[in-house]
């Protein structure tokens, strides 16, 4: 799910203008060896944009920032510490985000188009998922390393990550709240008979399928999703519920730092146009520390957190020790069954202990009295 603003209409106009020159330069991009030429093209194009539209966008930007803050505050007052995960009145889907993604639903599979960075991110995230899953099995079938595994791809979009996982032999279910995305993904996989059988797409949110798919997946993948959900706690809870004990959760997202604002929002969206405008909201970015604490408190033990860096000139991603921009995390659900409300348990235990103590104390007192 991608960040939505009030500028979905102006957003698509922007994108319309942004598409044709962008495609021209992007199509040449793989052949260009000089990074200066690439950035020059980008910069010269953005300078041609009417400044009025830019300032209009900025003011809308600030307006919707304040809106988001208000929304968040309202949400916070409603949330309870351990909510029933089956409640249908609460959802992790942000409907404004859905609108922005609708505008780009047919552009998913253009490898040199707006989603080019996501296509090239596969070079990092597929090996990350594959290698960590292979660690959990004794041996694997050559040619189909992930065969026999059931994977859930949450927020699959057009199926960019779902298809490689399917090609590696896994049976994958891809879900996305945007209907158009599912349609595009469905259409794209229909041409390949092997993928058609291994992948299934559903247009729904995670909460809807939690009941029927509890503890059935070997892995859940939420790549570039957690920065778009409304309620991260609930999202992680649902992920945990659909995982088998010992199953893996893979998350890739963006850190909430000043650097990620400067590079991730200002540079990527507004200046260089690497990411479509309005995709991300800085407030929704999640720091690795916050993510780790939510994961640990839900019974998922974090195995790896690794930084990812995108080079906009070459179009390739690299692993990095620095997690201040993008990062990937791998967590494993503990094999022991954990009660979903450990706080209550602890309370109960404490009260029991107190009772035992008082009874022993009273016993001691009685003895002393004797």
């Amino acid at each position: 799910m991608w960040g939505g603003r009030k500028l979905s209409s102006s957003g698509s106009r922007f994108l319309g203008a942004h598409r044709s020159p962008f495609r021209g330069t992007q199509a040449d991009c793989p052949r260009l060896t000089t990074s200066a030429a690439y950035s020059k093209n980008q910069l010269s194009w953005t300078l041609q944009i009417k400044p009025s539209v830019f300032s209009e966008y900025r003011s809308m930007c600030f307006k919707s920032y304040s809106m988001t803050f208000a929304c968040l505050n309202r949400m916070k007052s409603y949330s309870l510490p351990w909510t029933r995960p089956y409640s249908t009145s609460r959802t992790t889907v942000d409907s404004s985000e859905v609108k922005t993604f609708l505008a780009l639903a047919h552009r998913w599979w253009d490898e040199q188009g707006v989603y080019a960075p996501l296509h090239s991110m596969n070079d990092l995230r597929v090996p990350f998922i594959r290698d960590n899953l292979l660690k959990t099995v004794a041996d694997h079938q050559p040619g189909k390393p992930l065969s026999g595994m059931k994977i859930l791809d949450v927020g699959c979009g057009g199926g960019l990550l779902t298809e490689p996982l399917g090609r590696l032999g896994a049976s994958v279910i891809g879900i996305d709240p945007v209907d158009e995305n599912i349609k595009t993904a469905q259409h794209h996989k229909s041409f390949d008979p092997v993928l058609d059988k291994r992948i299934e797409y559903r247009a729904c949110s995670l909460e809807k399928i939690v009941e029927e798919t509890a503890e059935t997946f070997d892995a859940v993948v939420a790549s570039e999703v957690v920065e778009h959900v409304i309620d991260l706690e609930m999202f992680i809870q649902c992920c945990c519920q659909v995982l088998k004990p010992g199953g893996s959760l893979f998350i890739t997202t963006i850190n909430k730092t000043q650097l990620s604002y400067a590079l991730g929002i200002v540079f990527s969206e507004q200046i260089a146009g690497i990411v479509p405008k309005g995709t991300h909201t800085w407030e929704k970015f999640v720091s690795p520390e916050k993510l780790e604490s939510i994961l640990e408190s839900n019974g998922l033990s974090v195995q790896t957190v690794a930084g990812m860096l995108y080079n906009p000139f070459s179009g390739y991603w690299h692993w990095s020790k620095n997690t201040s921009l993008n990062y990937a995390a791998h967590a494993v659900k503990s094999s022991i069954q954990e009660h979903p409300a450990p706080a209550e348990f602890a309370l109960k235990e404490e009260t029991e202990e107190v009772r035992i103590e008082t009874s022993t104390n009273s016993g001691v007192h009685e003895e002393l009295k004797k």
Partner: protein
Amino acid sequence: MAARLARIRWGTAPAAARRGPLVSCRRWAGASSDTVYDVVVSGGGLVGAAMACALGYDIHFCDKKILLLEAGPKKVLGKLPETYSNRVSSISPGSATLLSSFGAWDHICNMRYRAFRRMQVWDACSEALIMFDKDNLDDMGCIVENNVIMHALTKQLEAVSDRVTVLYKSKAVSYTWPYPFSMADSSPWVHITLGDGSILQTKLLIGADGHNSGVRQAAGIQNVSWNYDQSAVVATLHLSEATENNVAWQRFLPSGPIALLPWSDANHTDFIDSAGSMLQYAVAFLKPTKISARQLPPSVARVDAKSRILFPLGLGHAAEYVRPRLALIGDAAHRVHPLAGQGANMGFGDISSLLHHLRTAAFNGKDLGSMSHLTAYETDRQRHNTALLAATDLLKRLYSTSAAPLVLLRTWGLQATNAVSPLKEQIMAFASK
């Protein structure tokens, strides 16, 4: 009446609807029930068959469907003939490694091949001489008959026939290329129409169909090429004296190079000679003794009957090796003068590089026809091949003249190169890849 009309209209409507899509999506005609191949190799020559073999034996392709299309009939070598074939290739150690990776080299060793350890090249117009010699006991390369290599490859393909399908006597007549990215209702695969009308779909088409590549022409890839006004004559010679035959001799005459390639101890030698008004190129082998002084080539007793053939020479290089869902390898991508013995080796080098990139892509679950790894292959190989093509063409032109300044230049160059052993080792290393 109205009801009947309505019914007729309803009756014909589906038929019309059926016809419509059939006409507009003619590509789908044979496609709905047919398999989509992962890789189709077009051209079953040395390089094409080796590519199909390499893919078939690679562990990352064990659940993928591979097809090899060959226009000619299946070539079976029943018993090794007594007489030697005069179409031979010089196989470098790098190519031998590739061939042994899928077990073809063992078959070749069991049949017939000739290793050579030294190479002596000199200029007819001057005393300049260069000797390539491997100090250790490794061979510089091997001479193998082309039909022996083909037989080894065919045997290996038969052994892996569950993964690699080979269609003999199938010539592709037309190709349909996919649109840049998935648009409504257009198949994203490459469609190949065969001579018998059947249509194949594939995710990646590898063109290995020789220097007049049909695949390259159909894709509209520009080809820089020119013909040398030279032809090669190849023949098998019998030597007059018995020598231990494992040295290559090459002499540059103004009319063209002559070389002798050793073939067997029993006085046979493969001889390619250029002579006469039509420039012809000959390669011959001869083995000298340990003395590094100039050796004379052995004297020739006679030429094997009916062993002379002639083939034209030229240079060619494709401007692009790859397109979405298409890759060119071997002579389809580059055609070179045989004076350096590199034509087949460049093709095998293409196979190694493409296999490496495809294997990584398959292990990452990528779409095999995606340009990201295909351009990496193109960059790899264009760098290597362009250098070699340019060097070979330059040598050919340099040695085609007897003008004094150029003779002086090349004499000094040859002598200087001969004196600097690290440079010679670099040249040998580059050619052995």
